């Protein structure tokens, strides 16, 4: 028997919120979209300052998924230490490579409220395709 999906607010738990922190726009875009399709709400940040800004306004964040190399004066390790000290309820996941972030995203998706949209290895493939397109994009004239 077909059952209509419940509307938000009809007793269903709110999706977990993941703050994805990745300085590479193409990687961040693909990872964020993948996790949204897994049913999570995603906030996107580019560096440690973004994370501290979001957390500083008490925005509900359940998980921080951050690249180790963030640029700036605070790397992922220092950021993770600070979050664990000041916001101990937030889970912090650090990733040092595309393969690692795809693995972690896949694990999160397994626990997420929605069906996995595609294999997490395709996250890596998609990011690499976009990077290659960008690398080979013709230079603008003038």
């Amino acid at each position, binding site marked *: 028997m077909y059952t209509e999906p419940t509307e938000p607010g009809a007793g269903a738990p709110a999706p977990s919120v993941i703050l994805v922190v990745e300085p590479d*726009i*193409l990687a*961040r*875009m693909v990872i*964020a979209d993948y996790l949204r399709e897994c049913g999570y709400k995603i*906030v*996107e*940040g*580019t560096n440690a300052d*973004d994370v501290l*800004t*979001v957390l500083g*306004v008490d*925005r509900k964040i359940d998980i921080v998924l951050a690249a180790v190399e963030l640029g700036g004066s605070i790397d992922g390790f220092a950021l993770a230490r600070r979050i664990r000290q000041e916001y101990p309820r937030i889970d912090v996941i650090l990733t040092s490579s595309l393969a690692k972030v795809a693995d972690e995203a896949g694990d999160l998706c397994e626990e997420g409220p929605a069906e996995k949209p595609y294999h997490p290895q395709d996250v890596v493939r998609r990011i690499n395709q*976009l*990077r290659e*397109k*960008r690398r080979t*994009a013709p230079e*603008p004239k*003038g």
Partner: protein
Amino acid sequence: MSFKAYHPSEGYEAARRWTVLVVEDDVLVRSMIAEALRDDGHLVIEAANAAEAVIVFKAGEAVDLVFTDRQMPGEMDGLMLARWIHEHHARVPVLLTSGNGSRVGMADFVLSESFFPKPYQLEEVAARVRLLLGKPGARGD
């Protein structure tokens, strides 16, 4: 190929989802705008600055409209980004917002309905996006 797109608010099922590129360096503002547009049914790509926006275009992502702040750090501000888009992706409309409500310094390619002085309400942004994406000549028409 041309096709007609309907907006859910008109009571028709949407033929496709538009992709909006939001370019804003303030993470809180960017996140709020992006969520408002996603709630309105759009696909949203978030860029923190003009350089990231250019990367998105160069990677071949299909973008139907760009919403960009004018004042952003880096070598390229929002107006320069709008000019770049006008030169290389002329069919993509650009919504330009600025804390300086004056249009002084705006170029003639920034249409009057494409300028958005701050402060603005999120519903205004969503309504203006719908207006621009419904115009003939927008991507896909």
